[in-house]
């Protein structure tokens, strides 16, 4: 459970937002929707523990992320996956390098398993056989999906995606929804930040809860027919 209490951020001499409360339960997929420059990326970085808020606190499983045990906070951050809005642009990197980099953070994967597992993940996000591809030569959609695959490679407990659904593009929305639902069913927490929520997702999620400049939706874990499997 990730809870944020009375969150406030002051930026460029003004209050961006203040006094916001959030609660992201486990085993669920959440979408935070907000207009451009409303601080969605900033909110995700605060929830990840990467940036300290100017006011308020974030509590993960009952432990303060910024005022509590530093080791626990590090452990939480290591258990997070993050698909940033600005994906990797380093010209020398290949998809294989991203997987190697991801494997540095979590060491449950043996070298022999790595290739097989990454191939399956790449196929799952719609870029099969991309291991040798250079990141700079990929489209924005391919980069986002590849980045998602490299994060899933470590099996993160909490996954933060910043603008991933919009960047992935229309043809991959169904696949992403299915993926996020599957992750949630496995007990993980998925937090997405988007400018808009796809219409069918909004229909399935209901009206959403307004929090400051944002609206928070909880995606249903069961499929559109109400089945869990």
């Amino acid at each position, binding site marked *: 459970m990730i809870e944020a209490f009375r969150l406030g951020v002051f930026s460029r001499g003004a209050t961006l937002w203040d006094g916001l409360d959030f609660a992201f339960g486990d085993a669920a997929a959440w979408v935070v929707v907000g207009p451009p420059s409303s601080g969605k990326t900033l909110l995700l970085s605060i929830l990840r523990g990467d940036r300290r808020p100017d006011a308020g606190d974030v509590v993960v499983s009952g432990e303060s992320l910024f005022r509590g045990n530093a080791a626990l906070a590090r452990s939480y*951050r*290591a258990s*997070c996956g993050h698909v940033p809005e600005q994906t990797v642009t380093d010209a020398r990197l290949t998809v294989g390098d991203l997987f190697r980099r991801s494997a540095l953070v979590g060491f449950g994967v043996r070298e022999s398993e790595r290739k097989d597992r990454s191939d399956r993940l790449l196929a799952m996000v719609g870029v099969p056989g991309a291991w040798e591809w250079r990141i700079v030569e990929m489209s924005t959609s391919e980069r986002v999906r590849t980045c998602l695959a490299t994060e899933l490679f470590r099996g993160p407990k909490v996954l933060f995606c910043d603008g991933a659904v919009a960047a992935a593009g229309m043809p991959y929305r169904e696949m992403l929804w299915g993926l996020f639902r599957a992750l949630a069913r496995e007990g993980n927490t998925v937090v997405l930040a988007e400018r808009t929520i796809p219409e069918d997702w909004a229909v399935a999620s209901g009206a959403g809860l307004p929090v400051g400049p944002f609206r928070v939706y909880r995606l249903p874990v069961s499929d559109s027919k109400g089945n869990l499997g």
Partner: protein
Amino acid sequence: MSETPSLWWIDWRLSRGTLARETIWRFLCFCLFGFALLSLLLSGGANRFLADRYAITAVLQADVPSAEAEGLARKVAALPPVRSAVYRDPEAAWKEFLKAYPGLEPLRAAGGNPLPGYIEVRFRHDRLTEGDVDLVASALRSVSRVDQVLAGEEWLPRFLRAGRYASWACWGLFGAILAGFFLVGRLQERGRAVAFAGDFSFLAERGIPAGRLALSRAAGAAVSGFLLAAAGAAAGGGALFLLLGKLPLLARMIGPPSDLLLPRTVASVVLFSCCAALLSAASSLLGGRAARSGRK
């Protein structure tokens, strides 16, 4: 999955090709350093060369019997600073004289061998000091059967000072090249830290403190520095061992090959490897810090 990932050998895992090239280059450098270090240690800079050149000559009185002169030479040889003390009888002295000054045979025709016997005293290379030369010369002068002691005391201080300067110059040059090597190493570490900046910020975003990362990299650099220095010194020492065995002239200036296996030589190599480990760790830390501050 483990929530505390190991950062051991992280540079190797990130870029094997670059690190392999750097490791080969460093190993070759450590081979040369090992060769130079062992040569300097064994030779004592210029000490062994000077000790090979310098000798005290104790000229004996004309009527000293050979047995007594040899007994005296043995006593002198037992003095701690003395490497060898050899008695040359008047006949041997005459032959040496003629070898140095050919054509002076008629001198002997006048009244027999005009030269007395003498004892040639040579010093250990690590005991060739003014104090030790005074000690041996005084001991020889106190013997009634010794007519004259030629120790070159009037030019000895300058001779020894020149030797000291030569030794300092050798060690200074060695130190300067070593310092240059670690400066290049620091630049390489910095370049690598810049190249891995994306990877390191990726790790930092996932809760790995920059300090832990820097310490892990420094620890890896220290271990590899120690192993490379030890392996390089061993390889350089092996090459020196073979060279000293084949070139006696070199062995006279540097020392016998067996000295390479003395405990103090081995201890020096271990100490050198430890210093290389510390400097490698420092290069890694400084290079990483410079890369971080350079990005700001």
